[in-house]
């Protein structure tokens, strides 16, 4: 009897996929782009008369993996990404038949190092961040030693005598990858011994800036940035690593620390003078146009002035918008649905 039940349920399962064609856009990818894409999806659902797209937060890597798995109704139409698509991912896409990918840059995300409002204001350089947070740092002779710095004063005599304690995202997070790349790699390159190491042994150099210390100075505080805000308020001596929009929304509790003397603001991120920032993308499947309804209209909504424009609703959600010329470039790509070629991917 159990066997009959089991077979019956299996038969029932296989019968279900014969469903009506999908009439809803599906989007996967980065949790950094998620707050923006969801806002566009909601507007699109309200104004277009079509179903609101489903937006999943899977992370950039996981999202592109799903996106590149092939064509068809069971595969997503868009992928959110907090970094450009990688060569390997592009090749997977092509191998699985996803040959017409449209890349749209939608804005920037700033990474902020922030502290509690109650703390004494700090100002840091990328090199100081590297010396404070890397697992191994070069000593005076350029030999790598386990990071001996206990307080900020050990890092640089000009900094206060406060224990190093930085709350940040865990290794699974794209934010952490970006932080390591933008702050620690750049900081390491300021040290001559490390610049030499990069030339002689690029792999070893990568291992140096990618390894963040595990002796308690860097505290993995989980993916939830709201939690880090609360911890900073409770412990004014600590610093936290955030997406820029969190610092903006929590301006009553935390303040952003200038990096290399530049404070993170919309202006400094957009014009590139604040270095801890990264471009955000959405990737679209041109081959799904006409098969899944609403793709062209959704893109039009996304690149419209009322969304990614300087006064648009995404700016209100914390997106650092593109400067005029680059926004025009994105709009041109969207209008012509310019397809990404192998030469464009690094």
């Amino acid at each position, binding site marked *: *009897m159990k066997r009959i039940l089991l077979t019956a349920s299996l038969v029932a399962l296989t019968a279900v996929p014969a469903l009506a064609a999908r009439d809803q856009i599906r989007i996967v990818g980065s949790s950094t782009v998620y707050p923006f894409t969801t806002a566009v999806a909601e507007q699109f659902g309200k104004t277009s008369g079509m179903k609101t797209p489903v937006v999943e*937060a899977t992370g950039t890597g996981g999202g592109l993996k799903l996106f590149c798995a092939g064509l068809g109704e069971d595969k997503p139409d868009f992928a959110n990404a907090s970094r450009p698509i990688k060569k390997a991912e592009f090749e997977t896409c092509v191998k699985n038949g996803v040959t017409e990918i449209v890349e749209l840059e939608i804005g920037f995300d700033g990474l902020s190092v922030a502290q509690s409002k109650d703390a004494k204001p700090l100002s840091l350089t990328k090199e100081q961040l590297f010396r404070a947070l890397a697992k191994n740092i070069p000593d005076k002779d350029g030999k790598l030693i386990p990071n001996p710095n206990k307080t900020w004063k050990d890092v640089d005599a000009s900094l206060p005598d406060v224990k190093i304690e930085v709350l940040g995202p865990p290794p699974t997070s794209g934010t952490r990858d970006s932080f390591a790349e933008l702050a620690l790699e750049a900081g390491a390159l300021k040290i001559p011994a490390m610049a030499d190491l990069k030339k002689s042994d690029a792999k070893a150099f990568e291992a140096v800036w990618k390894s963040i210390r595990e002796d308690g100075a860097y505290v993995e505080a989980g993916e939830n940035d709201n939690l880090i805000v609360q911890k900073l308020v409770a412990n004014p001596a600590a610093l936290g690593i955030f997406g820029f929009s969190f610092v903006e929304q929590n301006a009553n509790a935390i303040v952003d620390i200038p990096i290399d003397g530049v404070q993170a603001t919309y202006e400094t991120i957009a014009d590139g003078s604040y270095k801890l920032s990264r471009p955000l993308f959405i990737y679209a499947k041109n081959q799904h146009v006409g098969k899944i309804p609403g793709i062209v209209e959704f893109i039009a909504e996304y690149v419209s002035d009322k969304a990614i424009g300087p006064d648009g609703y995404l700016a209100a959600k914390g997106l650092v918008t593109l400067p005029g010329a680059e926004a025009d470039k994105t709009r041109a790509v969207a209008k012509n649905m310019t397809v990404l070629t192998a030469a464009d991917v690094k």
Partner: protein
Amino acid sequence: MTEVRNDLVAKRYAAERRFRFYGATALALTALFLAILLTDTVIKGIPAFHETSVELDVKVDPAEVDPNNPVGGNYDKMIKEAFRAEFPAVEGRTNQRALTALLSSGGADALRGMVVADPSIIGKTVTVPVLLSADADMFLKGMLTSQTVAPGTAALHIARLDGEEGFVLTGDKTGEEAEKELGLAPRDVVRFKGGALRVTGVENGYLKAVPVLATDPAVTTVGPGQWDIVSFSVPESNRRINDNQALWLDELKQEGRIENSFSWRFFEAGDSREPELAGIRGALVGSLLTVLVAIALALPLGIAAAIYLEEFAPKNKWTDVIEVNINNLAAVPSIIFGLLGLAVFLNFFGLPRSAPLVGGLVLALLVLPTIIIASRAALKAVPPSITEAALGVGASKQQAVFQHVLPLALPGIMTGTILGLARAFGETAPLLMIGMVAFIADIPSGFTSAATVLPVQVFLWSDLPELAFRSKTAAAIIVLLVVLFALNAAAIYLRKRFERRW
């Protein structure tokens, strides 16, 4: 004769008292933690159950609505115009934007509903509640800054400086003495009929101020009691409501136009990126559909498996292996079931992503071991004399089980099932893999439409940057807890009502 060792007796009593004390302490600590957790959640969540709107007199402009298609009218424009008309002194694009930013982007919904219900009001002026934005809502609930208003006690003289920005405030004295005499501090806002000024501080011996609202240059002297000092605990740069927006909201509040009502929207709306519009209906329906699938599958399978294993299966090596494996399955981390669901249901059977059907299948696998174990325990608790008596009067084994043992074991089975259900209700990890951790604005309409569930909604909201989502998160937790408490209460009731002790 044995000697009475009073010292030993005393020691034993002391040990017992200590043990009781430890037990009571443990219990008290647990209760304390639970109380802290619950109070914190409830305090944070309560504001989300109320929403704030402003009463506006809106003219339903026939030029903007087609009576044959009232849904498509431009109601947004109408409410914005009506709101601007309330503050005719507000001029300039930036100020007008700041003003209309106080309204929610879904503020026109109520008006649209009224016109759709009764198109005859087109062309008339109606009074309609317009929802305020989350920032305005939080300000009015006192969550952004605390605000004190004190009447000015001295006469205030206002002068405009020639060739310079801003105003100079004087009482009978000037500069720092004026600051003391008037009771002002930098950042304070001076409000009077005809304008409002923010004190910037003493400069070159003058107490200076900049306009917050458009200020009538004709006003030069304001008598005592004719003006207010409004001060905020959080400086303007650190909150999302500016001084001028705060004053506008104050004005509306004093006119009694601000309405604080229970937020039915929270239970009627789907997810949204605007905190004031977001609701849990979508997640609740998703949870319901998912659990329905799970229970429809897990309950018959679980009970059938339990009856067979307990009553009919031969006791041999194979049934031992099965038993051990069922117990092991109950302890497998739930994410593993998600991976299984991804591999089997999505990739092999090609079922749709994010569907309650798949979520239910995965959760059914998850709670199946719990149900089997609980059902077997319940069957085992029925005394063998019942079966023997039935067999003794000529019933077959099947008759004995289904007509005598199963009815007696049913309360225990139900309790186990409800507890399994409660677990399925609170699960997020396995759903991550099958795409149910997603932004889904539409209310799911069936088992294959995209859906999310309540705990996932809590997780998604907790990660958003907008401050207002914090109370939404807590409110969603409260709803989830209420559902779980209700399920557990049902389990306890069933046990108490029907359970028989032998």
